């Protein structure tokens, strides 16, 4: 029971820590450019694409395999 009571406090602390600013320079955020000629040549830098996954927000993205339930 005590564990459950302290859960909100732990979650809040974690949230606060996650919100802390790091001294590390922010990594650039790349949009999904799948479908562009340049991307076909060089590859897409969007994090999902770089991970070999399909970006659901870009219908032209083919970075991930078709998921097949077998």
């Amino acid at each position, binding site marked *: 029971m005590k564990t459950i009571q302290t859960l909100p406090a732990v979650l809040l602390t974690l949230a606060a820590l996650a919100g802390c600013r790091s001294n590390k320079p922010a990594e650039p955020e790349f949009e999904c450019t799948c479908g562009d000629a340049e991307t*076909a040549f060089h590859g897409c830098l969007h994090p999902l694409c770089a991970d070999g996954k399909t970006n659901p927000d870009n219908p032209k993205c083919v970075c991930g395999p*078709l*998921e097949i339930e077998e």
Partner: protein
Amino acid sequence: MRSALQKLTLLALAGAALAAAPAEERVQLKSGQWLVGTAKGYDETTKLVAWVDESGQTRTIHVDELDPRSAYRVANSRAKDADAETLIRIGNFARDIELFAHAARHYHDAVDKDPKVQAQVDEQVVTLKRRAAEFCVRNAKEAWARGDAKETEKWLSTLVTKLPDEPEAKEAQRLLAEHYAKTHAAQDDEYEDQYKNILETDLKTGKRHYDNMLEKIETALTSDSGSKSKSTLASAYKDGEGALKELDKVQKKLAKDDPSTELSELFDGYRKIVKDHMVEAQLHLASFYTASTSYQQALKEVNKALALDPGNQEVLAARARIETAASRGWRW
């Protein structure tokens, strides 16, 4: 409290069920129509995909009915546990539909899986380069036809720096020389007309550095020797530094008598033009180094460009690509 715990358990179970469920997929038919649903199976022999649409209706789709990009995703679904031969086949499929970076990744994975296929992959990479060179030329021509000089230059220089041994690279060098003669000279015409006096007097040295820089960028991209191209681009960057130094010096001198914002804007404008070309030189240089797998040197050059223009998306993207190439060893 108990009911809260029950709710949490239910939520966790629902989450787990969702995670286990196959994602809703979208595939496109050759007709252009999109199908939304779930792929229930794929038979490689018959090339049939078992598909359940959103309303629960089942149908089979032959891979040949699919748009090539969707068909590639079906082929790619076999990549995870595939042997080297299959990976090469998937790579060839990607290459033939002009997904060159995808093809390079599959070829790399094939060699990773079985180093004995290296010679076979090398053979396919020859075709990959041929197709990629044709692709660059086509894109350059299309960009030229719609009057997009920057895009034309981008594709021609990509061809020259990344695929220098392809026959199209020679033609690209010739076109680049013509292109530079027209566009680079025109870029500072406005300033040249408006501020002729300053350029012929105080900024004479700076202008000389700037002109040398442009000439060297052109020479580097139209040279037959990779090492000459690299040293010429490095020298072009130094000329750019010289031009910036002169701009600082002359602005300081002139500002004593003319503290106007117009003067300040003029010099800012000049600085931007000089820096843009320095960034361009560095990107070409980084591209030459990447093509010869000197990734550390390529990163060094691209970081110099980033120091000049920290938010430049083109430079940031180039850096990310070099880092990927360096860490994963994809090369073609």
